[in-house]
């Protein structure tokens, strides 16, 4: 083991950390907002909307993320119509393709998590809210969604961790995130073990911080579940 090389590559890999964190936060944020809508479509009584949400989730959960990334980055370029239209300036950038693929992917998984949360809201709570005159948006904002999010938080924390690890896949479409830079340095120095260990440690640290944060917010959001000290 070449410890000197490891210490030397650490700051170089940290440069890619900003891209990794950008990809995770942007796609998680947009994906989460879309996922709420998708979960509501999935629970709606409209057969067409329900079918749309079902097939969306079926496709994105049934195929590997790598296929989805490749389909967007390499696949879209096959169509001349798109290459000549204005959307091409979006699809020719690997960065935006990666964000699009990660967003669509996390949207499918999070919508299932949120749906589970919404379905776990006790019927009595909804009934009592209705009896006080709440309905529609107010009912969702004050009663259903807060309870659903609390219920879904542990599963969503899992999804965040999976997303952090999933961003390493974007190095296959030329993006220089932590893994991308690691692969570049390996091609120059021929010492994969040392450099991947450093890259792995960086991901481990991110995920360690994420799990702490999720744990902390879980304790903050469900104080009534803790035993009295």
């Amino acid at each position: 083991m070449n410890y000197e090389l490891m210490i030397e590559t650490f700051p170089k890999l940290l440069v890619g950390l900003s891209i990794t964190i950008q990809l995770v936060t942007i796609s998680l944020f947009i994906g989460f907002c879309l996922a709420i809508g998708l979960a509501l479509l999935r629970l709606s009584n409209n057969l067409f909307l329900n079918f749309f949400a079902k097939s969306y989730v079926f496709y994105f959960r049934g195929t590997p993320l790598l296929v989805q990334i490749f389909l967007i980055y390499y696949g879209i370029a096959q169509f001349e119509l798109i290459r000549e239209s204005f959307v091409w300036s979006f699809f020719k950038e690997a960065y935006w393709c990666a964000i699009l693929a990660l967003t669509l992917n996390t949207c499918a998984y999070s919508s299932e998590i949120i749906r589970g949360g919404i379905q776990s809201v006790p019927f009595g709570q909804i009934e009592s809210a209705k009896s006080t005159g709440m309905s529609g948006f107010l009912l969702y904002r004050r009663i259903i969604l807060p309870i659903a999010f609390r219920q879904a938080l542990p599963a969503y924390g899992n999804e965040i961790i999976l997303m952090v690890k999933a961003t390493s896949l974007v190095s296959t479409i030329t993006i220089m995130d932590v893994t991308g830079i690691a692969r570049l340095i390996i091609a120059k120095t021929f010492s994969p073990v040392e450099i991947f260990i450093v890259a792995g440690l960086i991901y481990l640290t991110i995920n360690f911080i994420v799990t702490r944060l999720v744990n902390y917010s879980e304790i903050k959001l469900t104080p009534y579940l803790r035993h009295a000290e």
Partner: protein
Amino acid sequence: MNKLVIFTRILIPQVLRYALPGLGNVWQLTLKDTALIMVTGLVEIMRQAHIASGSTYSPFTFYITAALLYLILTTASNKIFNSAENWANKGVRRA
């Protein structure tokens, strides 16, 4: 009953009931993760699609085919796991 018989006749049937849904999940995840093997150069579905799309300049056709193949694999194995769960649950009294 000796230990082996206890294990196969009593423990396994009861454990499977609870373990099968989780095992099905792990199976699905691993199935999808096999696509990552393409970076090592082994020629599986993804690598094959990558090679073909490179030489024909029609990446969409080949990657969407790969996606469909994965969909078929995941749905088929999902069906098998569902029927295995039904089989494991057949001794349970329903309310």
